[in-house]
């Protein structure tokens, strides 16, 4: 156990040694902290409407001001962080599970299935993301579920491809062949020999997808296709601010700046992690 | 009269935490119309020597001391723009691997025209000159060859093209960096003949670098033996090959596969490894591998020479 701790501390030190890594870490920790303790940190309820307090400028009472319904923006921003974070984590976890399973099937299964799956992945990838999102939303109606399905559809092909490539490479390798010759079952070979070898780069890439997912959620909520009002989401706040951008710019600032800081934070952190663990991935865009 | 006179050249590379001493007190003379060969194992500083002459050293490399006199001017005093006027016009180079020495996305014509960018000739004349050069290196159908791309030629043909490019501006000095190493033995002879022929026509000097002793013996007028960044012995080809003074030169000749008279399963090698150039060495650089090593060898041997035959070894100078 202490080995894990020391390894973690070592990684942490290497992250902080890079200026961008340190900035990213601070932003990410701040964002997570704000999301977890949103209720404690904000004196106001994120969805309480108060017609008397409409369009208040930032003040000591309302740190970020209020919106067109008199809701406290600081509280909405913190609670919006909860939404962004949970969507990102849940959607990526589900994509990872599905992607790993499909990738193993494609890599280990028969050739025709592999070809068919690759063709399907390419087809899914060939939808422009927003168009796919728009199509799904027409059918599901605006909801967080729709957002998650979009994210899963967008991410799974990439994850599955990585696992497939690694599986194909390992399938023919010596140690998998020897495991098979000793009578190990297919499932056992997959779980014990192939998966641990391919999971590392996959996790790094998945962590780098977090800001992308946050951007998708915010974007769909901005279009009114994500969260339903009055649930707070950064995209929704940005949309509120956008409609009143000339007179009350602070609403647009309150909605947009968290998106910028969070995506930057996760990206800086992800890039630093990638450089530390797997410099080979550097050339990948 | 010498085209190139290198005197006491010292080159170091800054590496993490230490300096690597790549060349130490290297002195070389290349007379006019003379072919000078440099032999030595890989890592002996042959490439660094070329890169120092052309000022193509990597960023961490530095000329610490010494002069490189070319046609009367000290190249180490030249700034980069002056160097550029020398490169390609007065000193040309043929590199080792013809597969990667030519630009893959530019046609032969483009590359040959670019080399003539200083020339006042018109485009048409430059083109004709290129075709003429290709003909001289015996590229079949030079007009259409000009329109092709490097990958469309075989290795031997590419090396002929490289030579054509290098000779086109009629340089005073041609540096040939192992020009035949990447080629088959049969092609090797043809390339060497070609080099000789063009050399006598253009009347340039050649600095020929190779680890192939047979080639050096056949082609070169003078030979320089390098080891671990130092010149151990220099002289005429006859002197070096028939009466090697330095133990290292003698071992090199013994180890040359061409000199094997009896059938053997194992090629003879010189025991030991090239010393670590990051460490500080006292005395003779070859000491650790030398079979005649004595107490005196812990001091640096002075260069000793008669009749143009020079050596750095205490055994000779005593």
């Amino acid at each position: 156990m202490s080995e894990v701790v020391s390894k973690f501390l070592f990684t942490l030190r290497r992250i902080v040694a890079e200026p961008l890594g340190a900035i990213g870490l601070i932003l990410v920790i701040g964002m997570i902290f704000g999301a977890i303790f949103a209720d404690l940190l904000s004196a106001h309820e994120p969805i309480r409407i108060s017609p008397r307090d409409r369009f208040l400028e930032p003040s000591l009472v309302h740190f970020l001001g209020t919106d067109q319904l008199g809701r406290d923006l600081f509280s909405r921003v913190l609670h919006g962080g909860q939404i962004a974070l949970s969507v990102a984590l849940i959607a990526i976890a589900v994509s990872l599970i599905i992607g790993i399973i499909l990738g193993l099937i494609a890599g280990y299964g028969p050739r025709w299935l592999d070809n068919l799956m690759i063709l399907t992945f390419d087809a899914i990838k060939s939808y422009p993301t927003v168009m796919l999102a728009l199509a799904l939303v027409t059918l599901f109606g605006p909801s967080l579920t729709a957002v998650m399905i979009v994210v899963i559809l967008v991410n799974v092909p990439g994850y599955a491809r990585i696992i497939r490539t690694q599986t194909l490479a390992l399938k023919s390798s010596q140690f998998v062949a020897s495991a098979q010759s000793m009578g190990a079952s297919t499932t056992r070979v997959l779980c014990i020999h192939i998966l641990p070898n391919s999971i590392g780069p996959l996790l790094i890439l998945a962590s780098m997808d977090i800001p992308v997912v946050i951007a998708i959620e915010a974007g769909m909520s901005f279009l009114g296709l994500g969260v339903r009002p009055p649930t707070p989401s950064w995209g929704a706040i940005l949309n509120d601010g956008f409609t009143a951008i000339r007179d009350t710019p602070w609403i647009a600032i309150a909605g947009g700046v968290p998106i910028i800081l969070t995506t930057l934070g996760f990206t800086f952190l992800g890039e630093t992690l990638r450089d530390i663990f797997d410099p080979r991935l550097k050339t990948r865009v | 009269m010498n085209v190139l006179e290198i005197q006491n050249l010292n080159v170091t590379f800054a590496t993490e935490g230490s300096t690597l001493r790549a060349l130490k007190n290297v002195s070389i003379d290349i007379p006019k119309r003379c072919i000078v060969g440099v032999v030595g194992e890989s890592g002996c500083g042959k490439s660094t020597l070329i890169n120092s002459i052309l000022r193509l050293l990597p960023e961490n490399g530095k000329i610490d001391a010494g002069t490189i006199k070319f046609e009367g001017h000290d190249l180490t005093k030249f700034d980069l723009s002056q160097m550029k006027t020398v490169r390609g016009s007065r000193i040309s180079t043929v590199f080792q691997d013809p597969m990667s020495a030519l630009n893959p996305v530019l046609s032969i014509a483009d590359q040959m025209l670019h080399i003539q960018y200083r020339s006042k000739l018109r485009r048409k004349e430059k083109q004709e000159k290129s075709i003429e050069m290709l003909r001289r290196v015996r590229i079949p159908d030079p007009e259409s060859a000009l329109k092709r791309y490097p990958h469309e030629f075989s290795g031997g043909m590419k090396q002929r093209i490289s030579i054509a490019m290098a000779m086109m501006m009629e340089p005073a000095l041609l540096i040939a960096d192992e020009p035949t190493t990447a080629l088959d033995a049969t092609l090797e002879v043809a390339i060497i003949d070609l080099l000789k022929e063009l050399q006598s026509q253009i009347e340039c000097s050649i600095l020929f670098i190779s680890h192939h002793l047979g080639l050096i013996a056949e082609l070169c007028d003078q030979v320089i033996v390098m080891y671990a960044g130092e010149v151990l012995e220099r002289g005429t080809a006859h002197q070096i090959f028939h009466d090697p003074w330095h133990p290292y030169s003698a071992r090199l000749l013994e180890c040359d596969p061409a000199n094997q008279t009896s059938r053997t399963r194992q090629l003879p090698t010189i025991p030991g490894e090239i010393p670590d150039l990051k460490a500080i060495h006292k005395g003779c650089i070859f000491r650790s591998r030398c079979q005649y090593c004595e107490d005196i060898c812990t001091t640096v041997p002075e260069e000793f020479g008669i009749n143009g035959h020079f050596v750095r070894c205490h055994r000779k100078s005593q």
Partner: protein
Amino acid sequence: MVSGDPKGSLDRFLMLIYSLKRLALAIAIVSVAMFLLFVMTYLIPGDPASVALGPRATEAMREALLVKMGLDQPVWVQFWNFFVNAWQGDLGNEILSNRPVAHVVLEQLPWTLALIAGGMIWSIALGIPLGCWTAVRRGGLTDRIIGVFSVAVIAVPSFVIAIYALLLFAVYLQWLPAIGAGNPNDFGDQLLHLILPSLAVGLGWVGYIARMVRASMLEVLEASHIRTARAFGLPDRLITYRYALSIAILPTVTLLGVGIGQMLSSAVFAEIVFARPGVGKLVYDAILTRNYPLVSGAVLVTTALFIIINLFADLIIGYLDPRVRSRF
């Protein structure tokens, strides 16, 4: 060894085979994409007719629309009709005005294409010089600053950039017009209206291209043919641009197709933020009015467009890189 001419014509023949193979693959991908789109619409709870009509529709209205949309037929017939019609360019009629979907979408497409072209111009015009510049001066302060800038514009979503660009340049500074596509009869005015939205669309790819060009430039500058060029004393500019960049640009060209796809996504936001006409605005409005055939038709058209562009990018590489040209 090469002699005579047959190799050239052989190259061309192989290139043709390669192009045909890529074309076949593209058609297969479009077909699968169509199939998936169809499956998606079919699997979703609630049939498109009730989705389109909304909750207050009567059963009779629903039945009528089902028949009209051909949804009363067996599923495989539906798919076959959809498939055949789509390949013939018939994407059905939209619900509100009953006009052909293909017609409506193609009418809006030029606006979106102009926006993407603008974004492309921004990203190439800024990205390639930045990438080259930082590669030649790597390790310096400007290299680091531009590096952080590149990551930042890649990370920040384009719609946020669009809104803040609007806030800064159109609302506060008032340098550029805020909304609309400009006077239809005034080309200059239209260009002026294109500047901000296309920058918002292209800025992310400025970062991508700068990074990619920098990375591949660094690789190419190490190559031995560059050393040869230096040894021949060629001018730096010639070496950087003709000898190095012409190779370093190739990986970027293959990814331009992907870039156009992403810009298409950004264009949807830009059209909504800047209130410009275009396919994105069309689909957005269609969703609000539950005009389902229009949405699926627009998705299909943009997807096909994206696949065609990618095909094109792949084929262009063949003409830019003589090595690839002869390999296939």
